[in-house]
């Protein structure tokens, strides 16, 4: 994190585009799918062929309302508008969006640090195709050739516009992360920034202290990860401060974040900015969701991340260590906190369940695995009861995830994981101590780190079958 010099303060607002997780595109029946051979997932409507007409996808409306409700927005009767500008990846040379009457009006998002960021609007619109510029400069100006893939054209988007309420790059990252978790929780989006499911633009300006008027802002595009959100904003704010301190002024413009070079550069100036000539889309009728529909959607919304984090802290007894807080944030972010609450409900210690879910299960699932809650809970119960050691539990988990489920006890038995009897463990421990007299002396002398050394040796000798807790107990007992 970069601190701005003197009394400079940055003012940031974010515009986040999220693709909606619908089966089909916003105005036609083409699949809403990532990838595919270029220009195969298209039809007359999403290609904007002459004579074609849009028909609104009701599921997209429902998901957009879910986002609006999760962000405490006012859901209002709305109108689609045309945003007119020429660009090759835009089949109609206008984008169907919402302008003066968005579906979701004023709302807010509370950051984990307690800051409330106003959400000015969350409106629906269609995505464009993808242009690739080949040869020459590799940009639209000066490329030898441009090729366009319209598979993405017409994919439903919601654009969530925050107020200028963010005051640091770290806060911007937190906002984006929290918003991402909310989007995932609502089921409206998979939140995958690397695939472009969630795209962030940042409006950045600086000013001298919290009471000064807003400065001239620049819009930063191409922020493809939470990390680049933070880096780009820090860089941009510093660039602006440097210019202003040198007596220069900020030119309002759109800038492109170059992740490799770690800097922003001019994309287009305000003078080149488009006049979008918005007007109501005559091919669609106004969108006015009924109160009944909105209430039904509200009733179907699951708990949002903030509430789920509070639940986990409660299970830990009302407070969490710093590393537990990270684990909580991580499991909620990944939507796997349900494993922890389910385990805690059957009497498994919340700390154990949280640690295993955050550290072991998350990794296994992120590689594409699946596991049902009941199976994971059974495994945690086994570990809690000492039926398997921590190491054994991890091995069983890996097996379960790899095969998509199964009976943890059967898997443990098949691997020969039986609880090692105390006599056998004692014998092995004594042998390990005898083989490593120097280390034992240092351990006796108070070097606690060597406990890990002996545990490792015992684990190696027992091929991981020993219970780590029992080894530790044995070591402490022998030291007296």
């Amino acid at each position, binding site marked *: 994190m970069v601190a701005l010099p003197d009394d400079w303060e940055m003012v940031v607002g974010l515009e986040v585009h999220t693709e909606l997780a619908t089966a089909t595109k916003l105005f036609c029946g083409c699949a809403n799918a990532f990838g595919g051979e270029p220009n195969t997932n298209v039809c*007359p409507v999403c290609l904007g062929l*002459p*004579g074609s*007409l849009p*028909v609104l996808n009701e599921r997209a409306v429902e998901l957009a309302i879910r986002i609006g409700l999760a962000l405490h927005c006012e859901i209002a009767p709305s109108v689609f508008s045309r945003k*007119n500008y020429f660009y090759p990846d835009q089949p109609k040379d206008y984008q169907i969006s919402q302008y003066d009457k968005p579906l979701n009006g004023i709302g807010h998002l509370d950051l984990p640090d307690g800051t409330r960021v106003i959400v000015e609007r969350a409106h629906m619109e269609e995505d464009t195709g993808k242009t690739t510029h080949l040869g020459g400069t590799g940009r639209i100006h000066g490329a030898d050739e441009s090729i366009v893939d319209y598979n993405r054209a017409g994919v439903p988007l919601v654009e969530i516009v925050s107020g200028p309420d963010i005051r640091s790059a770290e806060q911007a990252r937190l906002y984006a992360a929290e918003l991402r978790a909310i989007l995932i929780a609502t089921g409206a989006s998979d939140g995958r920034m690397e695939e472009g499911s969630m795209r962030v633009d940042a409006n950045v300006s600086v000013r001298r202290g919290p009471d000064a008027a807003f400065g001239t802002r620049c819009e930063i595009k191409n922020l493809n990860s939470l990390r680049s959100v933070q880096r780009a904003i820090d860089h941009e704010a510093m660039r602006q401060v440097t210019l202003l301190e040198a007596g220069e002024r900020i030119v309002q413009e759109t800038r492109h974040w170059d992740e490799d070079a770690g800097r922003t550069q001019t994309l287009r100036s305000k003078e080149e900015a488009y006049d979008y000539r918005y*007007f109501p889309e*005559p091919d669609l009728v106004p969108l006015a969701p009924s109160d009944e529909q909105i209430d039904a959607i509200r009733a179907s919304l699951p708990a949002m991340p903030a509430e789920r984090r509070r639940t986990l802290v409660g299970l830990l007894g009302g407070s969490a260590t710093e590393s537990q807080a990270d684990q909580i944030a991580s499991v909620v972010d990944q939507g796997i906190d349900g494993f922890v609450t389910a385990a805690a409900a059957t009497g498994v210690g919340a700390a154990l369940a949280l640690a295993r879910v955050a550290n072991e299960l998350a990794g296994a699932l992120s590689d594409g695995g699946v596991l049902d809650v009941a199976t994971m809970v059974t495994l945690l119960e086994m570990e809690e009861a000492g039926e398997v050691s921590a190491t054994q539990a991890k091995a069983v988990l890996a097996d379960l995830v790899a095969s998509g489920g199964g009976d943890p006890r059967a898997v443990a038995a098949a691997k020969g994981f039986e609880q090692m009897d105390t006599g056998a463990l004692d014998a092995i421990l004594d042998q390990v101590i005898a083989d490593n007299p120097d280390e034992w002396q240092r351990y006796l002398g108070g070097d606690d780190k060597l406990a890990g050394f002996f545990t490792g040796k015992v684990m190696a000798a027992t091929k991981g079958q020993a219970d780590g807790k029992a080894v530790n107990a044995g070591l402490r007992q022998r030291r007296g």
Partner: protein
Amino acid sequence: MTARGIAQDVRSGDRRATEVVEAALEEIATHDSAVHAFTAVHTEAARAAARAIDAAVADGRDPGPLAGVPIGVKDNICQRGRVTSCASRILEGWQPPYDATVVGSLVAAGAVIVGTTNMDEFAMGSSTENSAYGPTRNPVDHSRVPGGSSGGSAAAVGAGMVPLSLGSDTGGSIRQPAAFCGVVGVKPTYGLVSRYGLVAFASSLDQIGPFARTVEDAALLLEVISGHDPLDSTSLDAPAPSLVDRLDEGVAGLRVGLCRDLIEGASPEITAAVAAAAEVLAAEGAEIVEMTIPELHYGLSAYYLIAPAEASSNLARYDGVRYGLRVDAPNVAEMNAASRTAGFGDEVKRRIMLGTYALSAGYYDAYYAQAQRTRTLIIDAFAAAYRSVDLILGATTPTTAFALGDKVADPMEMYLSDVFTIPTNLAGHPALSVPAGADAAGLPIGVQLLGPALSEERLLRAAAVIEKKRG
């Protein structure tokens, strides 16, 4: 022969569709070199379709209410695999990969599409002189225009080449050429006929409708193409109306408003024809009420902001990137500009610029928004009028067909030929033009009947009365 007569004969096996279609192709061969109503004649496809209909009849299947009826389709209504170019260079050679909904309806009803008809480029014009294919001529007098923009469709029916055709009406583009060519033309209620596959000019005003030589045939074709279409969000959720069965129920008891604002400015002969039509309706039991709707005078101004505004956006997609004409240039923006410069005609460019201006930052409120408020005013004025009358009677056009080249140099003069038809489109209401005699030069005169939304049945009934006495 009427479409209804043909369909009856073909369905009953008294006449073969192949004969009917051959006869139409012969008529086209005879007349169209002079009239130039068609941009393409689909000879072999029409023969094949006719054979299929005859085979169906032979098999005891009913090919539908338009069995074997030859029909022309305007060049802005998509026909799969056939050039659909809106008579514009920019869409030269473009073949849609899909059929417009109305084309599917025609085929399902047994109609045989024999050709694609000429038009003003992108339906912008009132004379069919703005066509990349060259002008269509009025079948009654070849030195005169057929009207526009659906001039090809009107002339094809007027010349007797086909009994039916489809046009589109954004500000009068069916009714004005119908009047000029002496045929019946109906602009249906907005949303009654699907726009899916109609290449957009001004989306909130465009509507497909029929041309026919008789009111009954127009009603028959309108029945076939009407009805809800899930592919058009502005399609009304109403069943196709039953129109033909009630055509001879007359006008007794109807209150008809003789609207001064839709007559003033018309030639004396047209004014007299409207008065005569009113007398016919009165003689059949209608009550004629003289009325005025002063708000209609703002229609032309509002229309020439709203329609170009929508057109400027609708026509943006013709950019040389995906289909149609491309003029190569060093970069994308210059390629866009070069393609559009070469591909669009003057009238289209004029309206794109007008519409772009009307929507621009700083001008939107003064032009586009003001025009929309005016549109609301006109809708309200019509609503008030229809609380006291069932139908409105007026002229379709201020003049009969003018000479080719007469108004090409003066766009404003050309625009004024739609002054009586435009208000209907702004309100989304139905209206029709029915032949009502001729002027001293023998040029056809049309009178216009207007009604509230979904009053087609009533309009056609009144038109049938005028047709019987005056046509």
